[in-house]
């Protein structure tokens, strides 16, 4: 009986997230309606564009790939109770590093060049994140502010690099195309989906395992749960904070590197359409569970991919999607509000009326 009760509580938690998503979609529908769309029609088109057929699904996976990385990056930091809002900046740091090494190092064979380029991207992202963690640990600088400032710094600095020192002959704000030896192959023939998605899936499984089973994962979670208690138990919470942020940033940096090596083959100004903050939304929707992230990442990828199809007709939907994402973040993170809205359901599923 006790086990059964636990299950219904879990079911309720799941339904609460689904309800939050639905509410956000309804609100997005209202905006679409104001914009002169038929919301049901628009959502149907989005769904069809996202999951209607094999080719559409592969395109959805293209959109999902960066979100899986940035979502995982956010989850990793979140395990230690750090808000990494600097994913965007770490992504840029990784992408720029990979693009430079990919384009200007040309003497290496592929087996060395590609791993080197990707590792350098991950390292750059990791170090950029670790700097914010260091400032937090050493000087008490609020990581929310520092990481957001570092986003602006990274995007502006990269724009500067491609506009001045790396400016190419055609005057385009992008770096030179990376060498053949640094390019990542496609996953299937006749479709531009790169192998980066495999990296994402493997990384998600590995990170999940590490956080659940290793000493480091345990320590990080201990610091995230109760920093003071963890320190009393002899855990160096400052070091754990920096290490976790490095890992989180490395995942973002790797994402930037993979996008350069597998999708764009060069650094292009403003190539990220806000992947960083989208990662926050995807991770929140997955309730910070790495395995659930796969589903939520593909779902968002689908919504984005479908919206981009509709977007070719009229240009509202893409912005409405970001609005829906934000609403999901708010609603999922406000359990008490959702409890109030879902009061009858909660009463039915959660016996004893404990606050959960």
């Amino acid at each position, binding site marked *: 009986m006790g086990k059964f009760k636990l299950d219904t509580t879990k079911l309720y938690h799941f339904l609460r997230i689904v309800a939050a998503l639905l509410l956000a979609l309804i609100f997005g529908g209202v905006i679409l309606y104001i914009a002169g769309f038929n919301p049901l029609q628009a959502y149907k088109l989005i769904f069809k564009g996202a999951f209607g057929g094999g080719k559409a699904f592969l395109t959805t996976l293209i959109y999902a790939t960066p979100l899986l990385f940035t979502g995982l990056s956010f989850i990793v930091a979140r395990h230690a109770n750090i808000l990494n809002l600097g994913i965007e900046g770490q992504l840029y740091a990784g992408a720029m590093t990979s693009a430079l090494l990919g384009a200007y190092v040309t003497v290496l064979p592929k087996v060395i060049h590609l791993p080197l380029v990707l590792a350098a991207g991950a390292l750059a992202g990791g170090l950029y994140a670790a700097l914010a963690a260091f400032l937090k640990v050493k000087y008490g600088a609020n990581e929310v502010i520092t990481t957001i400032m570092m986003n602006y710094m990274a995007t*502006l600095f990269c724009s500067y690099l491609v506009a001045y020192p790396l400016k190419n002959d055609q005057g385009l704000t992008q770096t030179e195309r990376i060498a053949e030896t640094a390019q990542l192959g496609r996953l299937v023939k006749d479709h531009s989906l790169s192998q980066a998605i495999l990296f994402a899936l493997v990384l998600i499984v590995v990170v999940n395992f590490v956080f659940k089973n290793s000493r480091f994962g345990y320590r990080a979670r201990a610091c995230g749960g109760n920093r003071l208690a963890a320190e009393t138990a002899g855990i160096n919470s400052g070091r754990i904070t920096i290490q976790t942020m490095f890992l989180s940033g490395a995942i973002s940096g790797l994402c930037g590197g993979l996008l350069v090596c597998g999708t764009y083959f060069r650094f292009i100004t403003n190539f990220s359409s806000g992947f960083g903050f989208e990662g926050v*939304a995807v991770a929140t929707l997955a309730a910070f569970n790495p395995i659930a992230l796969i589903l939520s990442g593909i779902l968002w990828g689908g919504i984005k991919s479908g919206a981009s199809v509709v977007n070719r007709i009229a240009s509202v939907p893409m912005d409405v999607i970001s609005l829906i994402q*934000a609403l999901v973040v708010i609603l999922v993170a406000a359990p008490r509000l959702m409890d109030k809205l879902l009061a009858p359901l909660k009463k039915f599923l959660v016996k004893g009326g404990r606050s959960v």
Partner: protein
Amino acid sequence: MMEFLNLLGLLLLSAIRTSTPLILAAAGGSVCARSGVMAMGMEGFMLVASFGAAWGAYTFQNAWLGLLVGILFGVFYSLLYAVLCVTFSMNQVICGIGMNMFALGFTTSMTQIVWGTRAYSDTVPTLDHIQLPLVGDISVMVPLAILLAVLLWGYLFKTPQGLHMRIVGENPLAARTIGINTKKFKYLGVLICGLLCSLAGSFLSIDHVNRFVMDMTAGRGYIAVSVNILGRFNPLGAIAGGLLFGVADSLQNVVTSSSIPGQLLSMVPYVVTLLVISFAVRYVSSPAGMGKSDD
């Protein structure tokens, strides 16, 4: 030498203009923080108000009505923040980030709907300037920002009400024990912050320039949070902190891009924020109850 003095004068004038929204927002944020609520949603309040002001000014072809609409939008948005954070005890940082993201998506969608392009609005009427001795032609918001900051300082530190608000921010439990309605003060704090952020946001779209531009606030809400800390959660400190960032922000208006690339100049305010929040504010203690839920 003469040229240098001219440049310095230009820098100062520009700094006063660019610091105005920061002073307004940070002064409001001080009140919010003193009541125990972290002002993480300021970016969103400003952005929504900025859009509202441009939309109002465009619709009524009157800047003052635009300002009114901007204030309505911004204050309503801050009310939502208060409901989520105070009534539903939501994590204030997440709520703020979420609402800032929402504000960006919402204003961009609405700009597309109203003006047919997501990047910027049509030109709209702007607020009249006033003539002041010494400085000459200047926006009415500049003296207003200083005046409001001083008034809020007076309210927080020289009135019994302000004392109550600070008690709520330091220790809600103690405040409740002596019969203070903590929720009321928290709502008041957030709404005052919303009002000032609305003025700041409206200043951007119907005073500083004459249109709404996508992501017009560009992180000023977050910079205001750090100005807030730098100013020791004191509205008067917000004036000094705001001016510092105004100077950093104005460099790009004064230094021509032929000598230093524009992107690097644009980085300056963000770098200054990073340095200030890491090294200059080490010994500032926040209101003890800030960010915590009430019950």
